[in-house]
């Protein structure tokens, strides 16, 4: 019983938030707002899923925001120049994957600390995006493919927004990988004890490349969603998103030191952040106070969920 509560503390924070909002705002508990929150959460959720992989192996991926920006810019440009939507998506995802793999290579073969490696690529790619966009937004144009592309961000299928489907598919895939595939097992093993994992004959380099590749891929997917929703790619898109993603992962109970955590937790963490942003707007909290509230909720949530083991 105590165990159940311990395991579900993130869920409890989520519930507290929802119940409080139910009292504080009439517009909160409506189907429409529910969909709005889900759609807004989807971008952070997709990025946070990749971040969960990285954090599970004891790493981190700070470059996600920059990957989102460069991939979004390239997608917008491709669509605007009349490239087919499917092809555009494939190219963009491939680019994200490739960047992620480079991160993975720097960290595995290059033996760099993940924080600093991805800090480097984050800075570098932000520069690339500025150079590529020349500091201006790139519109997707008005072509037929552009309209279709826009649906990825704002379309509906059976009354549910498209990004919500994407988010759910990403969650399920990640859950399956972590729970039921060999790679998932290796991710946990690597995060718990790297040396023992090597001694067990597992190619840890491959696991790292997989993890950062996945994170890059998912960041580019998020880039596609953002660009599709806005119909344009901004040069400063995604900056600071890494912090939201990390917050979602940690609020979901995943340990920054690796080896412990789950996708379900991350889903809850992303929802907490999404609902919080929504709530601050619905409650018309003045801008200056929004950061105060956000910081306080993050601290409250993690204090509730603190682990038995001492952190440093």
């Amino acid at each position, binding site marked *: 019983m105590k165990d159940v509560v311990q395991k579900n503390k993130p869920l409890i924070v989520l519930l507290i938030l929802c119940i409080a909002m139910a009292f504080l*705002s009439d*517009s*909160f508990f*409506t189907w*429409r*707002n529910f969909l*709005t929150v889900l*759609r*807004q959460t989807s971008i952070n959720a997709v990025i946070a899923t990749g971040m969960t992989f990285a954090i599970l192996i004891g790493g981190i991926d700070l470059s996600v925001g920059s990957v989102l920006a460069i991939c979004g810019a390239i997608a917008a440009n491709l669509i605007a120049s009349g490239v087919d939507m499917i092809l555009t998506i494939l190219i963009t995802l491939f680019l994200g994957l490739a960047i992620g793999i480079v991160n993975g290579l720097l960290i595995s073969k290059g033996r760099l600390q993940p924080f600093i490696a991805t800090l480097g690529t984050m800075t570098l790619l932000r520069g690339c995006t*500025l150079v590529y966009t*020349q*500091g*201006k*937004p790139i*519109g997707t144009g008005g072509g037929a493919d552009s309209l279709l592309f826009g649906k990825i961000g*704002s379309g509906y299928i059976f009354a549910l927004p498209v990004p919500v489907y994407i988010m759910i598919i990403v969650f399920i895939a990640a859950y399956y990988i972590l729970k039921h595939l060999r790679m998932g097992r290796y991710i946990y093993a690597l995060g718990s004890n790297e040396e023992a994992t090597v001694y067990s004959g597992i190619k840890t380099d491959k696991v790292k490349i997989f993890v950062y590749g996945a994170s890059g891929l998912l960041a580019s997917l998020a880039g596609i969603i*953002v660009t599709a*929703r*806005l*119909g*344009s790619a*901004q*040069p*400063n*898109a995604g900056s600071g998103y890494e912090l939201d993603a990390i917050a979602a992962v940690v609020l979901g109970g995943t340990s920054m030191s690796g080896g412990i955590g789950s996708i379900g937790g991350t889903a809850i963490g992303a929802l907490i952040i999404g609902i919080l*942003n*929504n709530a601050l*707007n*619905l409650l*018309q909290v*003045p*801008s*200056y106070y*929004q950061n105060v509230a956000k910081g306080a909720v993050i601290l409250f949530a993690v204090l509730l969920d603190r682990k038995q083991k001492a952190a440093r």
Partner: protein
Amino acid sequence: ASDDKEDTKATIGLIVSTLNNPFFVDLRDGAQAKADELGAELIVLDSQDDSATELSNMEDLITKGVDLILINPTDSEAVGSAVTAANDAGIPVITLDRSANTGDVVCHIASDNVAGGKLAGEFIIDKLGGKGKVVELEGVPGASAAIDRGKGFNEAIAKSDIEVVAKQTANFNRAEGLSVMENILQAQPEINAVFAHNDEMALGALEAIKASKRDIMVVGFDATDDAVKAVKAGEMAATVQQLPKEIGAAGVDAAMKVIAGEKVDKSIPVDLSLVTE
């Protein structure tokens, strides 16, 4: 290679508050075009919206020994030290877009953000017939453009029966303009107009409004290409045009005059106008 300047060519430094905002990119482009036209060398540095970086940029330009420095301050208060540093080094300074509260400036070239906010407010009063409910999307909390535009706008509508029903920041950012507007749309059953402190947020809000299928007028600020397009297409009602290219060009123009020893006006206003359909 070396950073020696050629004897004949004037070297002008341009310090811009940030270059990942189209407004300032236009300002830079205007300056660059003018510099090319007049045969001057232009060194552009980006302060990334940080006052300390701005000061470092200033020091580095002083080290390089440029002839004049054009500065677009990140903030009117903090830029004082940078201006003073240039004063001490005997390098003339011209401020662009935002002024400097301290230090000696040869000339200030800008459009007035407070006036721009007023312009937007008056436009909305006019269109709504003096009453209605509006949403204000604020810029980065603490940014001078956000403060000034908000000030002008609120001063203008104070004289009417228009009520601001929601006031939230979207950090000058399009993606945030979208999500913040979505949330406001949930909370507010009745909205007649939105005033956004810049076009990026206005365009984000526009996406949210389009998706909600509600009929709300959007007014932005900056007249970026995207926004002007949206206005022409009848999606946005208006945007306040600041002519950033002209601010940049006028800056270089004045700079060349100063370098040549000519006199320039202490303050050169650049026109504000409202772009409507």
